[in-house]
């Protein structure tokens, strides 16, 4: 540069953080694992950059490499990380301490585990302030910590600093963590999935707050997320990672509207929040590549629109006035009633899907347990295919169970790790004494085929399978007794987007093929748009609104539903226009 520009513009045009050919390696018993394989990118002062990827893409590893806090045996094996022009890869722990907090702040993913349970919240904030020399003297530090928490949106901060983390809700803890991250006015804030553990509505307020705070403090923001919609909505620049490499990077809108790399195309095709947009705008976007994979969320959703005519079919399941009251121990001796499910009623026509939507604590999972006969209702009635499920004898209930089967949320807890896949799928047949050993084995093979898994799996154990494959096995087990109704309790919530799309596709195919009725319980409205024919929204134990999917999405009547809809990330992005 022969003609240097003025100081201010030069600062603005020089990257704050510059990553060059970064490689991160983890040493394990089975050899080295290259989690990040030579990536380069820049973050400029004040800008918001998002790294998007599935689990295992190396996005979180990249984030922790920037502050040299790689977990376990991880180390930077090649490349440079330049922070304000200074390579940090060779710095000592002491030198890094001066960069962490002061230059680069960090907001972690899980608010439940990221605050030390034995220290008060105020102590943990003050510690951050003191370490970075932002204030000195007990009084100043105290005042500063309260100010920081107030900025992070924590009401009544003076009193709350004396409390302990377990007395805070998840959202409040995340605010504290944001306060800690921004406490020393860093130039860059790394936010690693800052809201994925929170309810959708809380998610939105936290992200809004994070955005306005970083803007105010003119800090750059590096957002790590699995959610393409959220990334595009919040960041001006996107970096898409897959298997430790950057596959595509550039301005958010451009990437979303004009993706070039096949992997990016795939991600966009599979993202439920973006798909719903496409249907509403009824714009025809085709991605040849996504077609070839058989995974296109938009098509899946469109199919539902076609056969919504069956809405008048006879009900497969009817729930009326279902109520569950628990008695909760208060302190020591008195107990008080807690109404988890409050007088809910709905019907699901045969062959269709009803989505029961709600945030944590809304009572949706309790409702599912009652319908599955795992929890006796306090009052109310459940009828499946005309037969009452409530108030029947034990043996009658046993027979009725085959008509209704569950798929649960956690792929890692839903299969008994000590049974082979074949034994797991055959368990319902065995319990109900269906067929002999040979016919049961044949049925297991058939079921594995139905969920698109190789039959060789029958003799293997769950620990060799990925999360998505485990959920397929759970679906196969649920189908073993040829049930009429399948209760899907957050069945895809724990899965990566591409796998999620694949499972949703499978579920849709099975529904058509076998005429199944689904009760789809979820917190994720974006997915609802794709899979459900009708929707029931739950809040605090009550159903506050019901309707067809279109009615709810286009014309929600209740404020709560509207808030939920607004909170879907990426909903406001003009796409493929």
């Amino acid at each position, binding site marked *: 540069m022969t003609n240097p520009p003025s100081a201010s513009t030069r600062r603005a045009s020089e990257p704050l953080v510059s990553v060059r050919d970064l490689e991160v390696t983890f040493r394990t018993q089975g050899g080295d694992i290259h989690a990040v394989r030579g990536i380069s990118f820049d973050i400029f002062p004040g800008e918001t950059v998002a790294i998007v990827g599935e689990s295992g893409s190396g996005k979180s590893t990249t984030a922790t490499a920037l502050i040299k806090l790689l977990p376990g045996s991880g180390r930077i094996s090649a490349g440079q990380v330049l922070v304000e022009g200074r390579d940090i890869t060779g710095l000592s722990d002491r030198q890094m301490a001066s960069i962490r907090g002061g230059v680069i702040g960090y907001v972690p993913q899980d608010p439940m585990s990221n605050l030390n349970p034995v220290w008060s919240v105020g102590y943990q904030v003050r510690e951050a302030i003191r370490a970075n020399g932002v204030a000195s003297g007990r009084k100043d530090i105290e005042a500063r910590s309260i100010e920081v928490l107030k900025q992070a949106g924590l009401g009544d901060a003076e009193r709350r600093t004396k409390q302990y983390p377990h007395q805070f809700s998840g959202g409040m803890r995340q605010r504290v963590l944001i306060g800690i991250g921004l406490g020393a006015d860093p130039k860059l804030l790394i936010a690693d999935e800052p809201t994925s553990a929170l309810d959708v509505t809380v998610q939105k307020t936290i992200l809004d707050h994070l955005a306005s705070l970083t803007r105010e403090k003119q800090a750059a923001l590096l957002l790590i997320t699995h959610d393409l919609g959220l990334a595009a909505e919040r960041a001006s620049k996107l970096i898409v990672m897959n298997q430790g490499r950057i596959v595509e*990077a550039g301005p958010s809108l451009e990437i979303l509207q004009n993706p070039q790399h096949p992997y990016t195309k795939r991600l966009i095709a599979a993202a439920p929040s973006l798909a719903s947009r496409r249907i509403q705008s009824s714009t025809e976007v085709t991605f040849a590549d996504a077609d070839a994979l058989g995974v296109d969320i938009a098509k899946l959703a469109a199919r539902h629109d076609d056969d919504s005519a069956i809405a008048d079919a006879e009900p497969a399941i009817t729930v009326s006035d279902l109520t569950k009251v628990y008695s909760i121990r208060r302190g020591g001796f008195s107990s008080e009633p807690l109404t988890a499910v409050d007088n809910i009623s709905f019907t699901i026509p045969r062959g269709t899907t009803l989505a029961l939507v709600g945030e944590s604590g809304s009572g949706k999972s309790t409702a599912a347990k009652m319908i599955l006969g795992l929890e006796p209702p306090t009052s109310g009635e459940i009828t499946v295919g005309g037969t009452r499920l409530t108030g029947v004898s034990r043996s009658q209930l046993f027979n009725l169970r085959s008509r209704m089967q569950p798929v649960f949320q956690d792929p890692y807890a839903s299969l008994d790790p000590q049974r082979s896949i074949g034994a797991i799928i055959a368990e319902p047949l065995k319990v109900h004494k269906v067929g002999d050993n040979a016919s049961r084995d044949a049925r297991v093979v058939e079921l594995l085929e139905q969920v698109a898994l190789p039959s060789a799996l029958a003799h293997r154990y769950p620990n*060799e399978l990925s999360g998505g494959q485990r959920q397929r096995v759970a679906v196969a087990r649920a189908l073993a*007794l040829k049930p009429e109704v399948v209760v899907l309790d957050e069945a895809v919530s724990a899965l990566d987007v591409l796998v999620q799309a694949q499972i949703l596709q499978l579920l849709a195919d099975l529904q058509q093929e076998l005429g199944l009725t689904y009760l789809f319980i979820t917190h994720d409205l974006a997915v609802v748009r794709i899979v459900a024919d009708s929707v029931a929204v739950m809040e605090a134990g009550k159903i506050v609104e019901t309707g067809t999917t279109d009615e709810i999405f286009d014309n929600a009547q209740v404020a709560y539903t509207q808030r939920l809809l607004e909170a879907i990330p990426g909903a406001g992005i003009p796409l493929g226009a």
Partner: protein
Amino acid sequence: MSERANDHYVAPVEETAPQAIDSVKLGDRKSNLWLDAWRDLRRRPLFYVAVAIVLWVGAMALFPTLFTDVPPNNDCLLANSNGGPEAGHPLGFTRQGCDVYARVVWGARTSLLVGVLVVVITAAIGIPMGAIAGFYGRWIDSVLSRVGDIFFSIPYFLAAVVVMSVLSQYRNVLVISVAIGGFAWASLARILRAEVLQVKNLEYVMASEAVGRSRFSTLLRHVLPNSLTPVIVYLTIALGAAITAEATLSFLGVGLGSDVMSWGNDIAQAQTSIRTAPMALFWPSLALTITVLAFIILGELVRDALDPKARARR
């Protein structure tokens, strides 16, 4: 440089081609918790050492005549009192003139038998108590847990002292095992209850009940097998501890009758001549220590092997 922010970078597709979504990749060997744990154990040299010691002591207990020609109780000649090693009697003699080596060999049977019996009794009471309390909860849990608390709150060594004092006419292997195991089960029940409480809330347990499997059958088939890790570890270590407890009781004179050959009795008898013939005390003590150590090490190794997190960290 500033345009770089607006660059639209696309990686060469040949190098970064996306892979099939969620394809099934199976290893060439079957793998589950027990198989993996077994493979892990077989890689650790200490495991072989511990197993060898246990087998060695087991062989002494089952076939003592393979190890010594000296019959158990006769052949003690006061003339040999506190004698040093000599041909055929490698470890010398006790104060009563008995062959130390032979007594160590014959004593293995008693010690090991007590250990095994205590473990059987502990498991027979502790496993049902802990599993039922944890799984069924409510009043059953309250009742069983309070009963457990009571047994837990009497240090089992003191309890055994009382039992053995009362039953002074019946000081045999079975009675001492009941005296120890009859109180040691409470810890096991606590440990298992805590584990069952965690496992019973896992989704595969709910799935099993949603299919219609009975509660009890679910407990046996899914919950118990997945709660056994801490039980196995506890019982392995308890076996060693029981051997020590027997020796201590015998040492106090409320253990086995003095006519029974056990390491504890030998140590107790040798203590009176500790200054003149310390080796008569040393050898049974060493046998006892090594045996207990072998079981403790086995317990530690099994704990490690059954914990995938610990395995990954190594």
